[in-house]
């Protein structure tokens, strides 16, 4: 007797909803518009988030980038202000002695090397680095090429890896791999070209513009001694502070500075930065979502309005139903159901429209347009769908609940009194 009779509620709803199609249509459109706005805002947020995260990862993640500095504290009788620079050999020592290190890479830089292909000469950055650089700095070779490897380094081979923009400048549309390149007059062989990538963080300049050779070859050609940059990559991100401390201790002993001296080396710790970027992007997405949800809420107010009007119009009818023995739940149920139906039908229309818009926007080429490249493409995802459906459900419930509560409070004796 007391069990809720869902079937009855549905039957009563089906009868009631046949009545007012025109008004319902407008309300459904309002909800569809709100859903479209919500979904598009979330989709743009998602596209932006993916692009930001990808761009941040372009330089490589969880690295410490170490520059030469000057001592800030006196040490064992030596005054402050001495320049501190790591040498080629220090990389090997750091690798052996510092705990928790995945790898350590040294870089030497020639800021204006002249690179010549036939009659075309370009002045560009040339970097000599340990071959592990490719992996930690996210230099993925295009098909048909490779990055520098251990043999190149140990045998001081004259091989060069080019950034994609630089390769284009030197070779145009021809494939550079296997071709010769004169580096400050010395012939090198191009072994690979970097795959195009989105890069947000950088030091020295964008990776697309530089050329890389084995650090041993570089040293032999130019006779440099000091490293421009040392890269530290810990095995686990949370070990980064310990690795940096270990690095200062090891090199403090070798180069003669106070291991607590933070000015001896300039260090940019990027560990966790990708997470920060992701969180910022999620924050932006949340903000966009709230704006969208507010738009949708306006549609919900429309639904509530139509339901209030319905209740007012049907006051006598509701009174009659009550007199005939309808329980309060059988009065409120169909009203809430009707509100949910408007909301969900509108939501479905909005979703279809959003999918169409996103697909159409996806067809616009963004290659080459820097602003659009970072904005990314609006992207719909399952979590966005779930979030939208939840907001729609909530709006529908609320828009139905309050009018239904009014309907349930109708006093049948009052409404049936004959005036």
């Amino acid at each position: 007797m007391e069990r809720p009779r869902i079937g009855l509620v549905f039957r009563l709803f089906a009868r009631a909803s046949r009545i007012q199609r025109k008004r319902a249509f407008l309300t459904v459109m309002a909800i569809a518009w709100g859903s479209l706005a919500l979904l598009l805002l979330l989709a743009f947020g998602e596209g932006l988030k993916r692009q930001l995260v990808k761009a941040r990862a372009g330089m490589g993640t969880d690295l410490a980038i170490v520059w030469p500095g000057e001592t800030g504290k006196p040490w064992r009788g030596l005054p402050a202000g001495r320049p501190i620079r790591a040498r080629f050999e220090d990389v090997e020592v750091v690798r052996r002695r510092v705990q928790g290190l995945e790898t350590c890479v040294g870089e030497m830089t020639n800021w204006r090397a002249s690179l010549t292909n036939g009659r075309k000469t370009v002045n560009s950055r040339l970097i000599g680095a340990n071959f592990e650089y490719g992996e930690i700095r996210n230099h993925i070779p295009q098909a048909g090429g490779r990055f520098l490897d251990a043999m190149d380094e140990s045998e001081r081979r004259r091989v060069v890896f080019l950034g994609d923009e630089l390769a284009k400048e030197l070779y145009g549309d021809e494939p550079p791999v296997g071709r010769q390149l004169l580096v400050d007059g010395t012939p090198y062989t191009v072994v690979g070209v970097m795959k195009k990538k989105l890069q947000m963080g950088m030091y020295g300049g964008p990776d697309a513009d530089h050329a890389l050779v084995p650090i041993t070859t570089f040293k032999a050609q130019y006779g440099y001694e000091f490293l421009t940059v040392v890269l530290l990559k810990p095995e686990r991100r949370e070990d980064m502070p310990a690795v940096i401390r270990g690095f200062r201790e090891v090199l403090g002993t070798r180069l003669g500075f106070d291991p607590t001296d933070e000015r001896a080396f300039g260090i940019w710790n990027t560990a966790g930065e990708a997470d920060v970027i992701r969180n910022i992007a999620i924050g932006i997405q949340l903000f966009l979502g709230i704006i969208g949800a507010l738009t949708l809420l306006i549609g919900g107010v429309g639904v509530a309005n139509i339901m209030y009007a319905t209740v007012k119009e049907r006051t006598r009818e509701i009174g009659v139903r009550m007199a005939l023995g309808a329980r309060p739940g059988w009065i409120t149920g169909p009203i809430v159901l009707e509100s949910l139906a408007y909301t969900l039908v509108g939501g479905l229309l909005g979703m279809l429209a959003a999918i169409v818009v996103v697909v159409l926007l996806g067809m616009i080429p963004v290659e080459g347009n820097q602003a659009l490249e970072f904005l990314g493409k609006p992207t719909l995802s399952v979590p966005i769908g779930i979030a939208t459906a939840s907001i729609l459900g909530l709006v529908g419930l609320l828009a139905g609940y309050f009018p239904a509560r009014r309907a349930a409070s109708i006093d049948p004796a009052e409404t049936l009194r004959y005036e």
Partner: protein
Amino acid sequence: MHVFRKRNGKGNGNGGPVIRMEGITKVYDTGKVRVEALRGIDLAIGGGEFVAIVGPSGSGKSTLMNLIGCLDTPTGGDYDLLGEPVKGLDRNRLSAVRNRRVGFVFQNFNLLPQISAYENVELPLLFGSVSAKERKRRTEEVLARVGLEDRMEHKPTELSGGQMQRVAIARALAMDPAILLADEPTGNLDSTSGGDIMALFEDLWRQGRTIVVITHDAALSRRASRVVEIRDGRITRDTGARPEGGNAREALPE
């Protein structure tokens, strides 16, 4: 699940009265205005009676009808319907009592305009959890009983006033209630249709129905077996229960 009992008209099966009211009072208190609509009603109506409740406007007879029909609850006093106290029932229970025990007929019919006569009559059966097969059987049966078997698919707007009131009576009968409670059932009808409806009530009463009618209509109250008059919230005259088959017109001096 509700089970239809064929009522023999001699009460409710346990021998007691269908309606028993003792010291019923009803006060409407809006904060500023305090209206005593009923000031102590004692009334017992047995099975098979045809009671007309009469009285001038504002006498409290509508309030009494709302209380009898469980649309409202009394401020004080005891009300038993079929021997069961109504006091303290929650809204769901009151709905169930209205659904099962009371058949309402209103002056302005109160049919739902968008649905057919058939669907209107079916409504209380839906609320009463009656199975689909039984609903169809009962709906067709009561519509035939009021002579509208050929108007079942008509909407209320396509029916005459008399026909609408007969649909309303069929709807009131659908759940086979203990009492048929009518509020000025002939008030909106011309005299011919009104006469038909009165005849229908009398017919139903002669078949053993318990009927309570609130009316100004002397023609209708003369057909009743008992007349109760209310003034200022009190019963001022009660002709009392008559032997079966006797009309009040025999007891009331003109």
